[in-house]
């Protein structure tokens, strides 16, 4: 009991830090027009490559400086967050829905269902994911929905594999046989007895996948395959920042930090949630 409580204590700061950052970034993205100090697209060559606020030569109102076209970096990061979060949520949920369902079916029913689903997963995972994504977007055409679709199509296998293994483990538990003894049907048992026990894993994976989706979107933006280049995206800003690294390091460094912290927060948040959700670990 006391051991559990100690565990609970160590979980909390992680949950609050990661959750806090995600909430902050999410709110900023939602209310971007209100929050952003400048228009993210407004160019002003008089203001190009302004340094961040603590360096001499900074202008008030341009907290993180500007890029080589004089656009405000902070505002661009905030607006870029919109795309990042939309992609993260939509792609992760889509991948989760497909992958978890197939994983649950494969793991619980076994036999032919399992063999077919597992083969498909094996083949799927043989493709290098980034190349696969670039290929898909090239075929589907650029744009927000294509990016989301591409990520879901690639990454459902992650859910499928993990949930299948978890489900197999749970299905061997006596309480599954117990439900048969109680007179439940197979699908009823799967949904009633097994599913709630794999939910913590699904939640953790979902959060992790959101982080991954953010990265994949950034990669696609980086190679100019995401949405129209006018809208700021984190990957797009990084790509631009790379070109002016010697003149204005901040244009590369701040979006990188934002990306890393966000991805890390997603994975930490997921782990912490899993612990929270688990009645035994709690």
């Amino acid at each position, binding site marked *: 009991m006391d051991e559990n409580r100690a565990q609970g204590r160590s979980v909390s700061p992680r949950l609050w830090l990661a959750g806090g950052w995600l909430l902050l970034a999410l709110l900023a993205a939602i209310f971007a027009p209100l929050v952003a100090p400048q228009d993210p697209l407004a160019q002003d060559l008089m203001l190009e490559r302004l340094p961040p606020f603590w360096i001499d030569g900074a202008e008030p109102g341009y907290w993180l400086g500007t890029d080589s076209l004089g656009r405000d970096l902070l505002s661009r990061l905030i607006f870029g967050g919109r795309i990042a979060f939309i992609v993260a949520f939509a792609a992760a949920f889509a991948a989760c829905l497909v992958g978890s369902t197939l994983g649950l079916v494969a793991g619980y029913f076994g036999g032919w269902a399992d063999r077919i689903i597992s083969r498909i997963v094996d083949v799927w995972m043989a493709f290098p994911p980034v190349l696969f994504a670039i290929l898909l977007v090239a075929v589907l055409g650029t744009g927000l929905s294509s990016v989301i679709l591409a990520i879901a199509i690639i990454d459902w296998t992650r859910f499928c594999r993990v949930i299948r293994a978890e489900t197999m483990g749970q299905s061997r538990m006596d*309480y599954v*046989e117990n*439900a048969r*003894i*109680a*007179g439940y049907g*197979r699908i009823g048992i799967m949904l009633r007895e097994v599913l*709630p*026990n794999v939910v913590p894993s699904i939640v953790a994976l979902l959060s992790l996948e959101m982080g991954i989706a953010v990265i994949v979107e950034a990669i696609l933006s980086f190679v100019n395959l995401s949405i129209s280049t006018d809208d700021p995206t984190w990957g797009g800003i990084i790509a631009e920042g790379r070109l002016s690294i010697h003149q204005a390091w901040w244009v590369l460094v701040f979006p990188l930090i934002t990306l890393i912290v966000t991805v890390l927060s997603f994975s930490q948040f997921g782990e912490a949630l899993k612990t929270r959700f688990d*009645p035994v670990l709690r």
Partner: protein
Amino acid sequence: MAEPLFSVRGLKVALPDMTRKPLIGRAPLAEILKGLDFDLPRGSVTGIVGESGSGKSTLGRALVRLLEPSAGSISFDGLDITHLPEAELRPLRRNLQMIFQDPMSSLNPRRTIASIIAAPLKQNGLGDNLKARVTEALQRVGLPQSFAGRYRHELSGGQRQRVGIARALALSPKFVLADEIVSGLDVSTQAQILTLLEKLAAEMGLTVAFISHDLSVIRRLCRQVIVMREGVIVEASATDALFDNPRQVYTRDLIAAIPLPEIDAGWLDIPAAIKAPT
């Protein structure tokens, strides 16, 4: 005397042998039960004893039809259930209940005790008056009402096993399979659980198949015993007869190998064949 509750004839069960599964294709079948014949008389406790690999647990699972036999027949209450499909078994399930060895694994961690006990009631058309029925089931096994809202990890091993018993008996089944239900428990808890089962079985007139590796426990609880070894029945008889006058060498060895809690300087030196297993 009424006809037996279970009549088992030529029962064979074969399961896939995963240790011999080839890289590609199906695992070959291994015969776990090799043709068993026996009856379980109504209203009494029958012990099924054997060591690991004897097939006693497989036999139990075949009786409650969690497994389908590959040959032979099982007749339950006059009805042939050998190959009944799952859907046709469902109405029979309320009379074929089971208490599991590991109450940790047999209770769903995400459900409250009340919900675990209520599940079979709801599923078998006894959903009315649910709260009262759950309370009664808890009372029967000596657990206070306050346990209804708890989860399995908040219970001790003995309490968990009480919940397992409560759930199995909530439906007043005709048959209960008890599979090594005390082997994970401490001695003092074991005694409590066994006396509880003994009392309930007598009160409710249950037919119980009591699977155990412990002959001492069997002697206390069971009216007759089936001794199994490697998928066959070595000996089956009334309990007292089996202990007082075991007919088979294996049964005798099994009894002699039990370390009784009393001083016996000669026990270790009995020339029990110490042969290296091959």
